[in-house]
């Protein structure tokens, strides 16, 4: 890539890519993580930089020198005794040298230890002070974030409530409007339905009356017919009874005539017999 004059191209080692098996989801995850990391780092970079306190341990203390003792009565006696013993000093030193050297070494070490302890003490005070300052900064930052969040939450809460109220009001208005429209429509439908029912009812009654009248006429006529049929049946029964009697009479007459005819036949045969004798 050609370069103009600003940033270097991002040869970013923080994004690991397996070129043999590219995984876009993984690359995008890494990009998202990188952005999130940058976001979290950004506020820390913007925070006021604290001046580093140069601190180094104190130089190693020189070998302590024995300070001259303060002169008093004791000192004077000591001085006199030392003067008296001066001629034996070489022998004394020869005898007491190892102990003296050991003693001196111990004193020196103790002094060094004291100085080291003082240094560590001072260092601890400094670190505690620094920690306290950092905690203070952190608390201030937390307060700031808290304030910002609270302000933002208040704003969001306020706008949300306003919006809810607004939407609620609009919804109520709309519900009222829809309600009115529905009521008007229901009234209209109810009115037209009643009108139609009345109209249909009236027509139905007229039709029923008409049908009823016709049915009555037909009923009366049918009654007449039934009466006539009844009379006719009665007459037929009477006539049939008469005919039955007459039939019986005729059958009787026929039997008498038959007997007469048999008698006459026998009479005829007897006469013929007599005649042809």
């Amino acid at each position: 890539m050609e370069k103009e004059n600003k940033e270097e191209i991002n040869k970013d080692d923080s994004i690991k890519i397996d070129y043999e098996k590219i995984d876009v989801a993984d690359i995008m995850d890494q990009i998202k993580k990188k952005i999130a990391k940058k976001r979290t780092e950004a506020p820390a970079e913007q925070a006021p930089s604290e001046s580093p306190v140069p601190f180094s341990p104190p130089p190693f203390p020189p070998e302590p020198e024995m300070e001259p003792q303060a002169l008093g009565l004791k000192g004077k006696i000591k001085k006199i005794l030392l003067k008296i013993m001066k001629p034996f000093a070489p022998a004394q030193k020869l005898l007491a040298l190892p102990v003296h050297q050991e003693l001196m070494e111990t004193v020196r070490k103790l002094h060094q230890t004291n100085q080291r302890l003082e240094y560590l003490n001072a260092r601890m005070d400094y670190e505690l002070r620094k920690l306290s300052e950092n905690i203070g900064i952190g608390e201030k930052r937390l307060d700031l974030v808290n304030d910002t969040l609270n302000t933002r939450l208040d704003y969001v809460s306020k706008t949300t409530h306003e919006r809810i109220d607004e939407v609620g009001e609009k919804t109520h208005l709309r519900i009222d409007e829809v309600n009115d429209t529905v009521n008007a429509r229901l009234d209209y439908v109810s009115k037209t339905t009643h009108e139609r029912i009345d109209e249909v009812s009236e027509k139905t009654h007229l039709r029923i009356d008409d049908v009823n009248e016709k049915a009555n006429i037909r009923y009366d006529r049918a009654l007449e017919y039934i009466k006539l049929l009844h009379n006719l049946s009665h007459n037929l029964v009477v006539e049939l009874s008469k005919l039955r009697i007459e039939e019986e009479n005729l059958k009787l007459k026929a039997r008498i005539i038959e007997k007469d005819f048999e008698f006459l036949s026998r009479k005829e045969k007897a006469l013929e017999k007599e005649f042809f004798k």
Partner: protein
Amino acid sequence: MKVAFVVQRYGLEINGGAELHCRWVAEHMQKYVQTEVLTTRAFDYITWKNHYPQSEEVINGIPVKRFSVDRSRNPERFGQIQSFILENEHREEDEMRWLEEEGPLSSSLIEYIKEHQADYDYFIFFSYRYFHSYWGISAVPHKSILVPTAEHDPVVHLRIFKDLFRKPQAFIYNSVEERKMINSLSRNETILGDVVGVGTEVPSSYSGERFRRKRGLTGDYIIYVGRIDENKGCHKLFEYFLKFKKETGLAVKLLLVGSTILKIPSHVDILHPGFLSEEDKFDAIDGALLLMMPSFYESLSMVTLEAWAMKKPVLANATCEVLKGQCLRSNGGLFYENYEEFKEALNLLLSSEELRQALGENGLKYYNENYTWEIIENKYLKILNELEGRK
């Protein structure tokens, strides 16, 4: 078998969207079935004004029947109605009014479908949101197949479409995300359907060098191909790209290819050579480091497939679930949701040729496995055969 492809516009001059999708599929399917196109006389997708003569013509071997648009669309009135239905409580009548305004309002096309339904075995409708699909499918639901080309825009939630998505005999989706969205909206999982998409026509030879020489272009560039429109996310692309330039100072340029309805910022590194021929377009993609796809709403993005077919990586807008899903499935591109992600992803892509190459190769593999014409044709045939088997 005779199949009618029903689409809002049709012609060689229309070089994008569902219309081009429909033309390519129809042209490829004529090898297997008798195809015919039923469309309107419109050319302008804003007004649907009658443009083509009302006649039958043959385009690339396919008979095309054009029907008049009864009424042109008034964009202002349409905007008002759309705002009303998207922002207010409304009735189904309002949605039907919106559909009429959405157009293209061609009653003669619907009448023809009703009267001549016996002449065709299937009607394949493209784009669910237009008048022809709604009323066409309602007229012949038993013979209809829908290619919804649905994006995640608010109108897909209208009530009228919930019913519409339950009517066709089969669905041909563009992406897994589109299928999920339509399934969840209308619970139409039981209807036959498959994720098919569309193939693309990449020329056998193309040369980025040839494009550079022809246009006198020097230095590296990234490319955007498509309508330069706010709906396509171009305003955000300009904003992010200029901020990226300011912050990084990289000498990369942005090349825009396509017609514009948005003011392009005047900047020495934003180049707009206007509309390019197909040959120049592929040469320009070949010369680019990567393809930018800033669109918020896409049901497939054919240009993304073209870039992958040419082994070019893609940097896409993750707000569009389809683009994000395609990048994740293919491992052929990165995506962004905000400026920080845009900056990091673009920086990473520009700085690593190895990454660009690996993503491009993955893109090509994904294209070969899912979007070659042979695969697309077989998926269409499978659906048609399955419907035939049910008769």
